[in-house]
């Protein structure tokens, strides 16, 4: 970072010299006219020489020093961040009523990006490219006297090695992860842990039983998101358990997929489940099939399947959006027992209304552990409870601090944005 003034000194001084030079030139011109020198062209050269001498005289004899404005303009990197911010600070002497911050555009022409009127202040410049030099100019004005003052500085945003603004998130992550690991190890050592019942998951046996009795298929829709959505992963873990049961009871399974990656993963899940159940011959690749990647085309296709195949049980688990009610209502009209689950809060009311069972919030992600009956996996569910308790305590603490007028607690958890 360097600090330089434009032209080596404040602009006001340069302007003063320029005004004095112009005055001297005008004086010389008047003298020449009085003595009639301008009547002869050959004396024009003499006039030019006199003007030049006048300028040299002005520069040779410095003007009396005025009360020059003073100030500082600095650029600092914001520490412990992602290297996309710079902090501009300025501290100018009194006498200016308008300031603006300029930065060069792609052609190198300075453009105004910020107007201010504080003699002392700071400003954060965000959305910058890391490790690149940025130049800013601060120009101050005094409208009544016409004075101008400019300072220029250069700075470079640097990438930090830790995101300090996310410290609270890291602490929360470590605490909750630690609790999950603690309960996993406790369960591994044989400690009995209480897990509340999730009726939506308990009903899976009932749904499969009904489908088996009626000789009708089971429909499983793993949401409309691709494999990168954690909800889709959660749905596939449930599909594994469901397919295993379906294989045991020789019940048909229908799994339409919207994305090819989900298709591939779902096929593997179902195939492995059938092999695990000892029914590899019962597995058919067309159980799991690609429908379309269009949202409402996908919905139309599933509606058609429900109307034609009349599945006894429908499972809508994963990520759903506007199509949730269309699916659920169509399934309701066919008389199927329906279980739905999603983490999309806005779609839950539709599922609650139209489905027999709904997995809400974390229940979707707890399903696999719950269904596995594996103590080690069940132990991880206790970590969820710890997390909820922790959040409740933090909310209550935050409310108390806000009532007391103390803001550092909230600021700490908000983090730097």
């Amino acid at each position, binding site marked *: 970072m360097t600090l330089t003034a434009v032209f080596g000194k404040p602009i006001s001084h340069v302007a003063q010299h320029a005004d004095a030079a112009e005055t001297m030139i005008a004086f010389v011109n008047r003298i020449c006219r009085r003595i009639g020198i301008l009547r002869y062209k050959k004396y024009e050269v003499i006039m030019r020489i006199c003007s030049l001498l006048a300028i040299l005289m002005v520069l040779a004899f410095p003007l009396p020093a005025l009360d020059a404005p003073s100030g500082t303009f600095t650029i600092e990197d914001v520490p412990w961040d992602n290297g996309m911010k710079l902090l501009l600070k300025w501290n100018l002497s009194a006498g200016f009523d308008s300031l603006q911050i300029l930065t060069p555009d792609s052609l190198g022409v300075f453009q105004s990006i910020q107007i201010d009127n504080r003699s002392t202040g700071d400003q954060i410049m965000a959305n910058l490219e890391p490790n690149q030099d940025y130049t800013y100019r601060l120009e101050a004005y005094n409208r009544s006297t016409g004075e101008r003052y400019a300072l220029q500085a250069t700075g470079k945003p640097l990438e930090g090695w830790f995101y300090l603004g996310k410290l609270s998130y890291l602490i929360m992550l470590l605490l*909750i992860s630690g609790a999950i690991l603690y309960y996993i190890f406790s369960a591994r050592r044989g400690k009995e842990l209480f897990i509340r019942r999730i009726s939506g998951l308990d009903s899976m046996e009932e749904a499969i039983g009904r489908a088996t009795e009626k000789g009708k298929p089971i429909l499983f829709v793993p949401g409309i998101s691709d494999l990168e959505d954690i909800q889709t992963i959660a749905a596939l873990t449930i599909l594994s358990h469901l397919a295993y049961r379906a294989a045991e009871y020789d019940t048909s399974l229908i799994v339409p997929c919207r*994305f*090819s990656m989900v298709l591939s993963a779902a096929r593997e899940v179902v195939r492995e489940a059938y092999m695990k159940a000892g029914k590899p011959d019962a597995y058919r690749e067309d159980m799991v099939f690609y429908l379309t990647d269009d949202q409402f085309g996908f919905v139309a296709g599933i509606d058609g399947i429900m109307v034609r195949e009349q599945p006894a049980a429908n499972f809508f688990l994963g990520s759903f959006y506007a199509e949730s*009610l269309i699916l659920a209502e169509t399934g309701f009209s066919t008389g199927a027992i329906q279980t739905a689950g999603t983490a999309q809060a806005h779609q839950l009311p539709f599922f609650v209304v139209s489905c027999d069972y709904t997995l809400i*919030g*974390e229940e979707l992600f707890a399903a696999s552990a719950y269904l596995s009956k594996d103590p080690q*996996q069940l132990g*991880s569910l206790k970590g969820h409870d710890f997390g909820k308790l922790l959040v409740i305590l933090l909310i209550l603490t935050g409310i108390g601090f806000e009532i007391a007028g103390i803001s550092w607690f909230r600021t700490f958890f908000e983090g730097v944005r």
Partner: protein
Amino acid sequence: MKKNIPLLFAFVVGIIVLASEFIPHRPFNSITETLQNWFMIISGFAILLGQISLVRVNVSKIRNRSRDWQFYLACLISFALMVIIGLLWGKQEARGILGQGAAITANLGSKPFDYLFDNVYIHLSATMFSLLAFFIASAAYRAFIIRSFESNLLMITGVIVILGRTSMGSMLTGWLPARLHFLHLPVLTDFIMQYPNSAAQRAIMISAALGILGSSLRIILGIERSYLGSDK
């Protein structure tokens, strides 16, 4: 060994991605974006798998003369038609095998692919979406049936919000004195949506976030293996 390598990959990548969320320095700050790009590349190759599945399932239905097999035939014909005209004349600014199709574009007003997309596909999608209006009505009717305390609460709240969002609410309660302003239906509706409704949704989102954390941790540590097709 067959399972250990994927589990090892899951663990290593999971830890790295987790760390990259808190380390803004290179190369960590670009790991997530890089992985997403890799996913998109792999997805591109997987598209062929989806198309093969689509054709195979539909052909099977047609061959077996399944119920309503004509619809499966229509699906294949539509699929083939869009692929062919897309390959021949392209779409929008993209050229096809036969060029930009200036002559046929002059007749239709746009390229064949775009013509069918704009005049058939979009309207079919809108038709499906419009079904929501009727499904919402039927679902609301069932939801508001009084049969339990929760149903009563839901019905009362629903009626307040429905009326409060229309001019009917203002008309019904506009006569209330100033000291009872909070009972003005639009005001009461805003209160319900801003406080109880938001609180409930945030609670669900917080619990979902905790569920995601637990589920992710189980996958990273190899405790959850169902996504690999087996629990063992």
